[in-house]
């Protein structure tokens, strides 16, 4: 395994064209497109059974149990969220903003034959009722590589304004 001491730095000598990194990038882009299409059921299938999805308030923390987060979903919570987003009873989801997101500036932080940790930047524009809102953040994906299909084990979205006051959202980051 080629692993650095910190997820905040890149793996020396591993190019973005490394086939393991390319697999991870493809998964991240696939995820972005599914989220923009609000195809949450297909999105769920990208996650491992032990996968977590986190949008912290404090962008500096790595452990989320003892702090308040915007989103801190294990599989049970993520699936309840998908039901909420799709069943038609949540006002915010029924009339959600249309989103288009770009994910890029990829940096491989951990690369092995079993796992890739990929850092990236995400710029999302949400349009609703004549207004464009900007949601911008650093994203970290921990992706488990497998012959049976690569899966997201952990996704963390650290918004630049996570300690500010974003609007309430009817979509997912």
């Amino acid at each position, binding site marked *: 395994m080629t692993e650095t001491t910190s997820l905040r730095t890149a793996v020396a000598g591993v190019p973005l064209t490394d086939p393991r990194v390319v697999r991870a990038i493809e998964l991240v882009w696939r995820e972005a497109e599914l989220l923009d299409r609000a195809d949450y059921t297909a999105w769920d299938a990208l996650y491992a059974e032990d996968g977590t999805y986190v*949008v912290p*308030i404090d962008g500096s923390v790595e452990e989320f*149990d*003892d*702090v*308040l*987060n*915007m*989103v*801190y979903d294990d599989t049970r*919570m993520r699936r*309840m*969220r998908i*039901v*909420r987003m799709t*069943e038609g*009873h*949540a*006002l*915010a*989801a029924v*009339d959600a903003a249309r989103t288009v997101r770009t994910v890029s500036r990829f940096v491989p932080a951990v690369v092995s034959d079993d796992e890739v940790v990929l850092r990236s930047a995400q710029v999302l524009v949400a349009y609703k*009722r004549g*207004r464009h809102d900007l949601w911008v953040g650093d994203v970290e994906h921990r992706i488990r590589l497998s012959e049976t299909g690569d899966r997201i084990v952990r996704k963390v979205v650290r918004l630049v304004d996570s*300690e*500010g*006051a*974003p*609007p*309430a*959202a*009817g979509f*997912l980051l």
Partner: protein
Amino acid sequence: MTIELTPDALDVHGETPADLVLPDRVAGRLYTDPDLFELEMTRIFERSWVWVAHESEVPKPGSFKTTHVGRQPVIVARNRKGEINTLLNRCRHRGASVCEQPSGQANGFTCPYHAWSYSLDGQLRGIPYPEGYEGVLAKGDITLGKLRTESYGAMVFATADPDAEPLTDFLGDVKLWIDRFFGLGGGYPVKVLGRHRFRFRGNWKIQLENTTDGYHFPIVHRSWMASVDAETAEMMSFMTDPTCTTHDLGHGHSVMQMVPTHSDLSADDGTEPLQARFDDLVAELKGTGLDDAAVRKLVHAMHGTGFNLNLFPNVSMSAAFLRVLRPISVDETEIEHIALGPDGPPEVVDPVNRAKLRIHEHFQGPFGFGTPDDAEGWDRVQRGAQAAPTMPILVNRGLARETPSPEGWPTSHVTDETGMRTAYAQWKAMMGDD
């Protein structure tokens, strides 16, 4: 009182702001008129007691947080003697803010522009190159503007009105409910655990109303209700329960009891089973050596108290969190939902607070299962209220079944609009006071 739903009978016109509020209806203009908003900032937010902090946010000498009173930026700081002051966050020289950190620990505050420095009390301490002020400025006379600051039950309020009535009088019967609210600590003092912040595109009074609006709950929060365990859903099934009431506590304040059996958590008789979802927590707490009664007290208080205490104009104490509103403009408002939990030995309070944080995240915040649906409803009110500015917003639900409680509080069902009526009565009194 039956009102006739014809435009002529309903419309609320008036020469003065006070004319726009009637006992059972208010003009839609209250949400949309920028001139009214400007008046509210001076007549309400610069005169009323405005909540600024929970004492646990400024726990020791030198602790501070920055916030706003109305639109004015302030610093709430604890001085070396332990007293809490609310200082205007504005240098006396050229007006720059002297602190832009949300919270922290400091020995004083120094303006970044010309380095005028102030003590934790706001007293001007130092001026660089002071020769230029000889004969024109007496340093000892200058302080950051200071607002009157008073506390009750760890809730810190400030007012820009030096002649405002004492906080204790402003709160009146609310104090009993503040005491009850902090029963959420389950036998321990209460501390702030964290906060969600978000903005919505609507007037601040739409949020003020919402915290005392039991009527919307099963409709707007159907999605949240469907996602919680059956016991919690049952606990929040108050729509047709006649024991669930809202009291008008005066001064614009009200309390909406959704789960009256949890209004006074200290009155627990031990017969209500603890929720099965907390079985693992109970086992963990018992492992710390706490006796059964202490464990029960903590776990019985997991969802907080069973009421929303709505204080005019900017804070509510709801279940286990504070809701704080900040008017930004006539059609934009910022909300904080501040999570609270017990403060004590880590082996006891940490597992409790972990569970409380997850409960809070489930409903609150920009991605909660509750907040975004509320915000959508409020956006829709702001958009719809642009139509016919004199057409009223109805606040008459339950007026015919409102009766005094034994304490003398006007009281109606939890789904009624008693709390809105008292808030608007206070609005009318303050806005009509020239």
